[in-house]
């Protein structure tokens, strides 16, 4: 094992060295640092050309410059972007944060949704639902991201913002949406006709009621989770989490979740109106504090589970932790949403909250909550555009792997033992179907740190991809090379991690030295 790791690392380094040379040569041949001066009529252009040639050592052959660069790079000196005089490590730092912000949420959402839909699709193999998902997945897969991004801007930003000027959904449209949702829902649920009709009806009714409620309470302009919505949503969370985590039969687990709901409702008022107020926490709020509060919620949830203990207190604690965290998140969300009206009315926003460029609105000001809101109005479209595309991939992948697992002998054995279907699917099927995912997710995640070049450029987010393109256009080799080497390094690293992870998860795989 150790020898395997060492060998892989050494090979990786050699690969990195060779690829850095190749990349350096390619970039060097591509760019022309004197291009802007060549067509300038400025009388000083010749002098500047001379200076620049001297500064960048352009008269030396490229490999000489490569070795100079390499020498500095391995000692940790990434160089200076000569056009702006800024140090490359500086540039990388801020770009990486922006990229992580963008891709982390998109990746997590794509994995969670993609895997969930893929699993359902696999369980309903060769049904209309399965075909529908397959069709949708291939459609999304084949859409060019620049086009999706522009469509999202046109409809998701310009269209939605226009809608917000007078947010009324016509009754026939509400009925239409409800019917379509009901139809898709019954496809996913499956079963006999009666079951399908009941589910379709319930789903359609729920959607229609929610839309109507939103319309009647002016929810689009004043989004909030009042007592009604908070209670309904929390109960929904409690039931879903319990079902997936332990099954509703486990009463202690269910009571734990319900206790969390009750506690959430009790704490809603003091937390939302006093803890999260200007007099208390607001001036000190940042993501660190928010995370800390989230951890507290998890702790409290686990504690409740432990109080309901029994022979299997760990299960209750798990259910409690997840439920409490989600319910706490709802309260956080409600606080953020309460600034929606003020945000829309801000001069910097002018009643058009969904933004298409940058990662923050200029001249907005505002406290932590407004800042969070602002970040997400800028994040939502690029995140959606990244998500739609990678979501499709995960759907296909998890469907395939789930199908393979569900046809294994041990699944039949499990069923024969009389274990209920939920346990068979969630414990024996789902978990094992995730093993192959372990080998693609690291590669995907680390690949995404390279930045979504096109998405970042179109939404004008100052991330890694943007750094690369902008500097390539500016004929600035230092940041371009730093970017390329980091990406190459991460790609190699990701592959090694994927191999090791796979071996760790699946005892049947042996890593041969």
């Amino acid at each position, binding site marked *: 094992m150790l020898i395997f790791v060492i060998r892989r690392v050494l090979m990786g380094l050699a690969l990195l060295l060779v690829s850095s040379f190749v990349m350096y040569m390619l970039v060097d041949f591509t760019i022309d640092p004197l291009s802007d001066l060549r067509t300038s009529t400025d009388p000083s252009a010749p002098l500047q050309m001379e200076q620049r040639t001297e500064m960048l050592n352009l008269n030396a052959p490229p490999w000489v410059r490569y070795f100079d660069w390499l020498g500095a790079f391995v000692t940790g000196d990434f160089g200076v972007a000569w056009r702006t005089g800024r140090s490359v490590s500086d540039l990388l730092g801020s770009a990486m944060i922006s990229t992580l912000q963008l891709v982390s949420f998109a990746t997590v959402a794509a994995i969670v949704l993609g895997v969930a839909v893929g699993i359902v699709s696999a369980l309903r193999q060769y049904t209309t639902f399965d075909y529908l998902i397959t069709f949708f997945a291939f459609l999304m897969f084949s859409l060019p991201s620049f086009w999706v991004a522009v469509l999202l801007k046109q409809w998701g930003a310009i269209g939605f913002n226009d809608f917000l000027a007078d947010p009324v959904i016509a009754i026939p449209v509400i009925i239409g949406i409800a019917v379509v949702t009901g139809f898709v829902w019954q496809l996913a649920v499956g079963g006999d006709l009666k079951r399908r009709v009941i589910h379709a009806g319930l789903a359609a009714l729920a959607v229609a009621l929610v839309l109507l409620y939103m319309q009647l309470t002016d929810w689009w302009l004043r989004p909030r989770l009042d007592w009604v919505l908070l209670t309904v949503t929390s109960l929904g969370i409690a039931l879903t989490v319990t079902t997936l985590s332990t099954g509703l039969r486990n009463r202690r687990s269910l009571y734990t979740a319900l*206790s969390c709901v009750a506690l959430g409702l009790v704490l809603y008022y003091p937390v939302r109106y006093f803890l999260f107020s200007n007099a208390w926490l607001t001036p000190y709020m940042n993501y660190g504090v928010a995370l800390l509060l989230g951890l507290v919620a998890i702790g409290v949830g686990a504690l409740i589970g432990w109080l309901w203990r029994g022979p299997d207190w760990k299960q209750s604690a798990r259910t409690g932790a997840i439920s409490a965290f989600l319910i706490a998140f709802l309260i956080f969300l409600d606080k953020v949403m*309460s600034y929606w009206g003020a945000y829309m009315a801000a001069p910097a926003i002018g009643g058009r909250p969904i933004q298409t*460029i940058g990662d923050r609105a200029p001249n907005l000001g505002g406290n932590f909550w407004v800042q969070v809101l602002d970040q997400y109005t800028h994040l939502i479209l690029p995140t959606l555009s990244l998500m739609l595309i990678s979501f499709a991939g995960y759907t296909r992948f998890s469907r395939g792997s789930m199908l393979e697992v569900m046809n294994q002998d041990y699944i039949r054995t499990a069923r024969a033992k009389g274990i209920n279907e939920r346990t068979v699917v969630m414990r024996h099927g789902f978990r094992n179907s995730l093993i192959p995912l372990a080998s693609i997710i690291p590669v995907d995640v680390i690949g995404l740190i390279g930045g979504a070049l096109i998405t970042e450029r179109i939404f004008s987010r100052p991330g890694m991809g943007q750094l690369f393109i902008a500097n390539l256009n500016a004929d600035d080799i230092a940041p371009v090379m730093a970017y390329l080497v980091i990406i190459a390094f991460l790609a190699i690293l990701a592959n090694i991690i994927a191999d090791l992870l796979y071996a760790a998860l699946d005892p049947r795989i042996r890593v041969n030295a």
Partner: protein
Amino acid sequence: MKIRRLTAFVAGAAAAALAITACTPPDETGDDGNTGGDDSGIVTDTAVTVGWNQPFYEYNTSSATGNATANANILYLMQESFNYYDPELNLVPNEDFGTYSIVNEDPLTIEYVFADDIAWSDGTPVDAVDLMLQWAATSGNLNTLADEDIETDEEGNVVNQDEVDANVYFNGTSATVGYITEVEVSDDNKTLTATYDRNYADWEVNLTGAAVPAHVVAMHALEIEDPTEAKQAVKDAIENNDTEALAKISKFWNEGFAFGDTLPEDTSLYLSNGAYLLTEMVAGQYVTLEANPDFTGAHAATVERITVRYNEDPMQQVLALENGEIDVMAPQATADLVEALNDLGDDYTVETGIDGTYEHVDLQVTNGGPFDPATYGGDAETALKVRQAFLKLVPRQEIVDKLIVPLNPEAEVRQSYNVVPGSPMYDGVTEANGQAEAFPLENDVAGAEALMAEAGVETPVDVRILFAASNARRQQEYAIMAEAINGSGLFNLVDASSDDWGSMLSAATDQYDAALFGWQSTSTAVTAGNANFGTGEINNFYGYSNPEVDELQDQLSTETDPAEQERLLGEIEAHLVNDAFGVTIFQFPSVTAYRNTVTGITPITISPTVFYGFWEWGTTGDTADSEG
């Protein structure tokens, strides 16, 4: 705990929750009825938001790194200067900043007098010492280390840093400021007298203001607390040529004004002496400027705030304009873009015009190709006739009609090698140069045939055209040229396009016979053309040499009377036409689009383009940054 007791506890908690439900929540009514119960801290001022394609990154626009349009635009809003261009490209003196005049013709001596009340935003007056530092820095005359002594590795990291630090090295050198060999500052620091070592025609645009405040440089470089003392220190250092102090000053001048991700905490690093103060910056995204309350000049801010946001992709700027995120945009014009802008509707104004770059075709005369006398055994006459015949066939009007008029309905063929259309000398120069008659817009095929017959050259002659391979517009131009010229049967165009065209112009002269590209004008300096046409000059890639042109250029470069400059330019261009040096085709089209709620936008042809006339901007209600 027993389950039953816990159930009781939960029930009690639920009851408590319900009881609290009955309470009225705290007052949630803010100014809009929904602020979450407390002050949101949102800024309520209005602004005009301009979209631009490259972010601002450095305050010192004269340094080697800061010299970029993106920086110059922002500084135009922050700093006054001795003169500025008006929409007709006249150079207008700005007496709010100071006055200047020629006090002696031989040697050329200029006296700059600063206005009494012009001051940096920290209260220190803007005066002759600031201009003195500008001269010291950009003339390069005080540098004790020549450029070639700087040893760098590939990254631009200076290897011999210690040696550089010990020497005076200002990195933003302008050759023409170097013509000023002596400056003298009066005792009250209000007057600077600059003496040239030669007559220089474009002296008026040579030294126009100070890029950075001298006292700030000295306060940082020499660690002086008091601004007045710091100013004096700069003056002393330059007057006494104190290399130790100047070395520190030059180092700070080169590097001290570059910004990181946000504005530096030290506010002295971005002082203003003009209409706006820089108040916020997010690297790569936007800068915000606010009206300077202390500024009293004529170009005072009329709009409370100006925000400049960045997006490299013009089509995305159109969407941002439509979504209310920007109010004004002035990208490079393309057909798709103009169409998208026109589709925006009546709430927006789209104005087309010309920008500072012009397209032209130049001929290689020393590469052994069809335009080189050597090809015809040194027969200059024959080569000239072939060149003239070729240029007569270049379909200039057709190119303009097909490619440029759709973007700028008023586009015309440019007829001058030196002067920007619409600038004061354009009409006079184009009348004198005769380009319109020699190379008529209606292609003179008969004339070309006659010339080729006289030349007695076997036709068709192959002509290799060098242009940027991946530039769509130049591909189309080539296609139009090929169709028109090949049709005559006299010439046969060969596509010699390359992505490496920029370096091929000078490095691979035997690879092409004619070059199609654009020159960019950054000012109306009349001497700029010498680099293109003078014998052996840097931008003369073609071996063109005419002693009379060189002689006229010499006269021009020392001529300070505008009428005489115009006459000389006319004569130079007449030679270029007679020698069939090349033809000029069109001025690049520009487009400016803005929301109708912004008024007073009047872009000019050269830098600062759309930012010109910001003192006349106004808003009528809803801008990207105001309440709807």
